[in-house]
């Protein structure tokens, strides 16, 4: 299955890196979209459907937590799995994100294999696997 992926990060360097890591991880993608914050991501999602969203937390205008909250309140978008990619690997942050409905979590630094494994885990399970992150 080829995935349609949305990358949400205010750092162009990080968006480029994630895009490249997706390529070298061997994960099949049919489309990769980019957005620089939650607001731009919602605009993208109003015209494109995606299989999975990879989002940062610290972003201007609409941060990752606000973005995830908006998604969970949307009938159309609440089913789209979200994986948070963040510098914050603390247990408190992970628990908070789980409570918001985030399905996957990847703390930087991560390898291409880590990203591939997390996307596959989230897409295969289809539901929250809280014990896994």
């Amino acid at each position, binding site marked *: 299955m080829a995935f349609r992926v949305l990358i949400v990060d205010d750092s162009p*360097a990080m968006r480029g890196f994630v895009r490249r890591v997706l390529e070298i991880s061997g994960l099949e993608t049919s489309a990769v979209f980019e957005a620089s914050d939650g607001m731009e991501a919602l605009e993208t999602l109003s015209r494109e459907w995606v299989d999975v969203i990879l989002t940062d937390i610290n972003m201007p205008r609409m941060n990752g937590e606000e973005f995830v909250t908006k998604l969970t309140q949307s009938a159309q978008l609440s089913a789209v799995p979200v994986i948070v990619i*963040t510098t*914050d690997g603390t247990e408190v942050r992970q628990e908070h994100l789980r409570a918001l409905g985030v399905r996957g979590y990847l703390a930087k630094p991560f390898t291409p294999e880590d990203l591939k494994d997390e996307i596959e885990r989230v897409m295969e399970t289809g539901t929250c696997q809280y014990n896994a992150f």
Partner: protein
Amino acid sequence: MSVQRILKEAAESTLETMFFAETSEGGPAPLGGSPVIAEVVFHAHYEDGNCLGRLSLEMPESCANSIAADFEGIGGLGDVPPVAANQVALELANIICGATLTRLDSKGLFTLDSPAIASEFSKPAPGAQAAECWLEIPSASGGILHLAIALENNP
């Protein structure tokens, strides 16, 4: 484990995992020219109190270009746009800061301000809990990275 050790391990892990750069321990060395300097201010909340802190990073411009080329998958150093070296330095500072704070206390909570390019490398204020380290990056041109972190109690 000491803050200096944690900072060094976080930097090594970040450089090797996401920037594809092997490292070895270095010592203070002149960076020459106009180094690229990035800083991240953070607020940490631990069981024994709150901290306000800053992580500072500096490296020669040639090193920043080399790391940016690897991070962004750009073929030659001459193809690295000037803005890319700064963006990658900001991202490197951001990731090392988060990895260091997570290692310092995985049960704590912290927030990072947006990283910024600075004109001078910040020396820790007197009285602050501080650590610094130097890493060599043999694969990068002018490959030396200087890092410092300072934490001040902020009741």
